[in-house]
């Protein structure tokens, strides 16, 4: 069976800047992959290419064996690849409920109704249960632009997940969220994602978060994949610690306990 996502010699340049080069990776269904790398390492560029937001300068991207080169974000999303954004992309001046109703209409009903009310009782019931799953139902009637980052990030992800993508790419889901709330947010998101069984890539700067949720880590450095493998292995790699993490990580430290370790404890 072909991989869910496979990139072949993927490259993207912006003028003289090589934002990504020589990227060859494979993601299989159900995998949870943490993506790390310092600022400007090429993480967002990678996600942007895989979701059709920008086109690669060279190389190929295969989703379930089919190339998505030249495809628009819309076509890529219809092919089963979802994403969230470093800065949540929402309908700012509408309420949370209207945001998710619109998302539901486009990604689940997929029919541009002209006369059926969007806020029908059954639709509202359905999307409210989604909001509940992401623990943001209390904000249903608030206008998005008035809400804290964390709520917006959750809504952004909830909207992208509605179409049940097989592959979900989360660009810094915890950025702009207070340290003490990061785990809460990730717990919520990961619970929803595990339930849907989507393979997931999440970009994250906080190694504690990476250790807790990722089974596998991709470390980007200067537009290249510096390391790719099981979380513990990649994070204990001295090269990764020096170039990506920026300091020595003592993985035996209790705060780096992975989910599995703490389950055993």
């Amino acid at each position, binding site marked *: 069976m072909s991989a869910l996502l496979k990139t072949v010699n993927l490259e993207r340049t912006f003028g003289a800047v090589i934002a990504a080069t020589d990227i060859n990776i494979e993601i299989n269904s159900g995998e949870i992959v943490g993506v790390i790398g310092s600022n400007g390492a090429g993480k967002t560029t990678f996600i942007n290419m895989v979701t059709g937001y920008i086109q690669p300068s060279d190389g190929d991207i295969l989703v379930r064996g089919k190339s998505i080169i030249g495809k628009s974000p819309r076509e890529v999303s*219809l092919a089963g690849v979802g994403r969230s954004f470093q800065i949540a992309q929402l*309908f700012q001046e509408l309420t949370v409920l209207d945001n998710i*109703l*619109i998302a539901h209409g486009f990604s689940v009903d997929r029919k541009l109704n002209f006369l059926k009310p*969007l806020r029908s009782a059954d639709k509202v019931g359905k999307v409210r249960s989604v909001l509940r799953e992401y623990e943001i139902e209390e904000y249903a009637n608030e206008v998005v632009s008035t809400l804290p980052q964390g709520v917006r990030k959750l809504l952004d992800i909830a909207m992208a997940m509605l179409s049940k993508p097989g592959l979900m790419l989360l660009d810094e889901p915890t950025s702009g969220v207070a340290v003490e709330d990061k785990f809460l947010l990730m717990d919520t998101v990961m619970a929803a994602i595990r339930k849907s069984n989507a393979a997931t890539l999440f970009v994250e700067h906080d190694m504690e978060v990476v250790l807790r949720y990722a089974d596998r880590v991709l470390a980007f450095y200067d537009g290249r994949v510096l390391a790719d493998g099981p979380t513990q292995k990649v994070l204990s790699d001295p090269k990764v610690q020096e170039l990506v993490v920026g300091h020595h990580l003592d993985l035996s430290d209790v705060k780096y306990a992975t989910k599995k370790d703490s389950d055993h404890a």
Partner: protein
Amino acid sequence: MSKRSLALLLILGVATLVGGLLLPNWMSYLFTIAMGKGLVVLGLVLLMRAGLVSFGQGLYYCLGAYVAGMLTQFAEVTDVLLILLASVSFSVVIAAIIGLLLCRYREIFFAMFSMAFSMILYGLLVRNQVLGSTDGFNVANPSLLGWAPGPEGASNLVLAVAVLLVFTLGILAWRYLKSLSGYAGEAVRENEIRLEYLGGSVFKIIYVKYIIAAGLAAIGGTVTALVSGHVDPEMAYWTTSGEFVFIALMGGTGHVAAPIIAAVLFESLRTYASAVAPYTWQMILGFALLAIILFLPSGLWSLVERFQNKKPRKAP
């Protein structure tokens, strides 16, 4: 929509119709024109809710009017229903073609391109001797299903048709705005990227709205042509399109009734202003617009909303 509000609307519609018919002739004439323009502006409002301002609705207003006029003069078709059908169909076809190009543009480019197309029509009509060049030509009195009322009856017929159209299309537009397609407009205005990632086609959404707006403008033009008994190229001139934008700003985009009410107010204000101050009525309109932009940036409809003391609408 509940049975109660439907009944209320029906009563309101009949009252409007009876009221319109009882008005002195010159007033019921203005009222009919206002209904026509209100429909044009209703279409414009659909686009504005998606963040697009067309400065070229005069194109379809004029096309609708000329199709109506030409049918009565050159084909001896006077049936108001046939005329409406023909005007709308023709304009919709033209919009479907122009829209392919136009709906790829946004903001000032959309506004200017839409204006450019209306100016092309203006240029074509002005050069056309058969269609009366700058003078335009007269439109014969309409009939309905074989019934041909005299000149006076004809304006009453147009008034009745206009009121009927305003109410039915108003209700349809109201439902439309509450549907996914309606909300899609706001979604386009707020965030096209998000919409595309949800699997929505931004182009298709705008394209459909553009075509609906063209159809409504053609109806408005037809009503105007039939009630005034005359068409001329001025209907495609950019000042006519500007007037529609003026009315839209005046009413606001908050409700389907806003453009209709604003059109009635606009026609009244203009008639009054040009009567009391024949040389400075544009200035009076200018100040009115300035006042609205400064004090009611969301249009007159925001007064209604303020009156209702609307909090963010609660979901069912």
